[in-house]
């Protein structure tokens, strides 16, 4: 009947397989097709199917179908979900809280305080009037086209998530730089986080948390954006001149003094480059996260796609680009200032 019958016949596993032939389990699409055409399996060598789960299932019912595998994964996940939730929920609750508060704050402050404040911050970071002008023009434009609230929402989410990325990522990077073993463990994890398509993060998270909770997209953004800051902290500390470290040792510095007095300051340009990339990646992810109810400019992009409002889609896309430019320039200016003071 099926191509791979002979294996089970030869190995004498027919009994283990059950009767063979039509079982009482659910029928696969292939079974149904086979039934309708009524053909029996006189397959030419050219058409031999790969011995996949489904093909083997045809020959022996005890072998599960691939469909069973995915359902298995799903039930498995749903089974551990509740226990996982007990651990993860309280742990991530502050994230929801921080996101909510920040979103509220950034929208509650009136624009005539907020925009000058952002200009002031960019001046403090970059010390460049050109930069301040850029910030003023961009935010002015976005407010002028009535996207002010959306912009502030996006910015609030990025601030919170990037801050948490730095808060967690820098210590992880430091731990990696101090032990080769930790580094060996972390690198595959970071590789995975970096290469997984962003949508894939969202799938288990949707099951884990309700879509109304901000931490759902918060976690997705953090997981996606934390990688560069971890990597570059590790790299930066490892690249610190060994001669300088030796001098620190020779003058009797403790490990702590060495870390905070020498290694971190000298790794700062690399760490800042990591922060820059982390911010840019949170921006990319916050747009995608609007699929799971993240507010902000991403919602407008989504509206543009869903209801084919071309103008809205384009304008909000432009808004995201402007935001990206501002964030990039401001962090790069900070980086340049650190570099200038060091060499």
């Amino acid at each position, binding site marked *: 009947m099926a191509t791979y019958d002979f294996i089970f016949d030869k190995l004498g596993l027919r009994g283990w397989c059950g009767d063979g032939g039509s079982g009482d389990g659910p029928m696969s699409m292939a079974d149904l097709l086979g039934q309708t055409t009524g053909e029996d399996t006189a397959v030419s060598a050219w058409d031999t199917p790969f011995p996949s789960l489904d093909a083997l299932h045809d020959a022996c019912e005890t072998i599960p179908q691939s469909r069973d595998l995915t359902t298995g994964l799903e039930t498995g996940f749903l089974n551990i979900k509740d226990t996982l939730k007990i651990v993860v929920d309280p742990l991530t609750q502050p994230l929801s809280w921080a996101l909510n508060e920040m979103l509220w704050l950034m929208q509650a402050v009136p624009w005539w305080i907020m925009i000058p404040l952002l200009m002031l911050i960019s001046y403090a970071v970059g010390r460049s009037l050109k930069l301040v002008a850029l910030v003023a023009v961009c935010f002015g434009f976005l407010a002028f086209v009535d996207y002010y609230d959306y912009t502030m929402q996006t910015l609030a989410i990025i601030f919170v998530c990037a801050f948490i990325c730095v808060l967690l990522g820098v210590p992880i990077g430091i731990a990696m730089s101090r032990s080769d073993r930790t580094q060996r463990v972390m690198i595959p994890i970071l590789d995975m986080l970096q290469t997984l398509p962003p949508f894939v993060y969202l799938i288990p998270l949707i099951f884990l948390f309700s879509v109304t909770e901000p931490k759902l997209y918060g976690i997705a953004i953090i997981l996606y954006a934390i990688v560069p800051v971890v990597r570059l902290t590790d790299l930066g500390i490892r690249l610190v*001149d060994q*001669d*300088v470290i*030796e*001098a*620190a*040792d*020779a*003058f*009797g*510095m*403790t490990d702590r*003094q060495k870390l905070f007095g*020498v290694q971190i*300051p*000298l790794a700062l340009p690399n760490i800042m480059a990591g922060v820059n990339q982390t911010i840019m990646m949170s921006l990319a992810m916050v747009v995608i996260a609007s699929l799971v109810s993240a507010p902000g400019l991403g919602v407008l992009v989504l509206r543009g796609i869903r209801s084919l409002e071309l103008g809205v889609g384009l304008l909000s896309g432009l808004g995201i680009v402007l935001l990206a430019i501002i964030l990039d320039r401001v962090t790069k200016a900070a980086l340049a200032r650190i570099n200038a*003071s*060091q*060499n």
Partner: protein
Amino acid sequence: MSDDIKIRIRNLYKIFGDNPEMALDHVKQGMGKTELLAEHGHVLGLNDINVDMPAGKTTVIMGLSGSGKSTLIRHLNRLIDPTAGQVLIDGDDILSYNDKQLRDLRQHRMSMVFQKFALFPHRTVLENTGLAPSVEGESKKKYADEARKWLARVGLEGQDDQYPHQLSGGMQQRVGIARALTSNSDIMLMDEAFSALDPLIRTDMQNLLIELQAELAKTVVFITHDLDESLKLADHLVILKDGFIVQQGEPQHILLNPADPYIEDFVSDINRARVLRTRSVMQKTGTGTKDIAGEVDHDANLESVIEASGGDTNKCYRVMKNGEEVGILDMRTLVRALVPQGGSDDPEAARRAG
């Protein structure tokens, strides 16, 4: 200047590799550096080193690249731990020190100057100079005066707020020396401290070190691969080759009595007239009753005597130390001393045989 021994190194071995204990047995049975590397994949860093370093004097460790000089000096503050042996400082075995004692040793009793300066690029000249007090938690305001004093002493005034990359190499190394001096430690370790500087600056720095030594009388351990430099600075000279000591002693003595073809090679290119001192070649008792043409200081080099004699080999000089006669120098002896002597035989033959 007493003849106390500040640092004693006893039977020190260092082997780099996965199983140094195993390799140590082979080394103790006489295996050399190349065989050890070829047969067991271990690098012999130091092989049975015994040195006494006198307090208040300069001990120079000299050898070619890879001979183990840096490895040796790093044992003195335990930046490297030995495979076997002892390092005694003021009679204390520093290998028995715990972390805290070791930090104390590095903060207060020893300081180090590095070949590549190794200044902190993110700190100003003043902050770099005050490294030792700042490690102890002193504020900048508190150590600033002390640091400025030493900066001035090495000839770097008014550069306090510069960053290291704004200074030339010679200036950076002055900061490195001021940093070491600010720790007020008795011992100063200098690993090829002047090797990265160009020749003129280098001579300046050597003179600076000699001046400082005359004033401060620290126990200096100085590493170099340059014989001229070592002869200029050394009170005690240790010559290393492939991890073991070929010869050690007073530099003038080594120059006149090289123990080994390796050292003969080293000393053959040197300007002996400039390096040798009258005290090393004079006769203690004035035998001949020749006319004394004049007086020379016991520490004067032969070049100055030749100059004074106008090249006349018949003259004799009285060698004076602190106003007293300590010997007689015959110009003929002097001229003979200018040519290297390989024992009683022809030096070339001795080298070929040995």
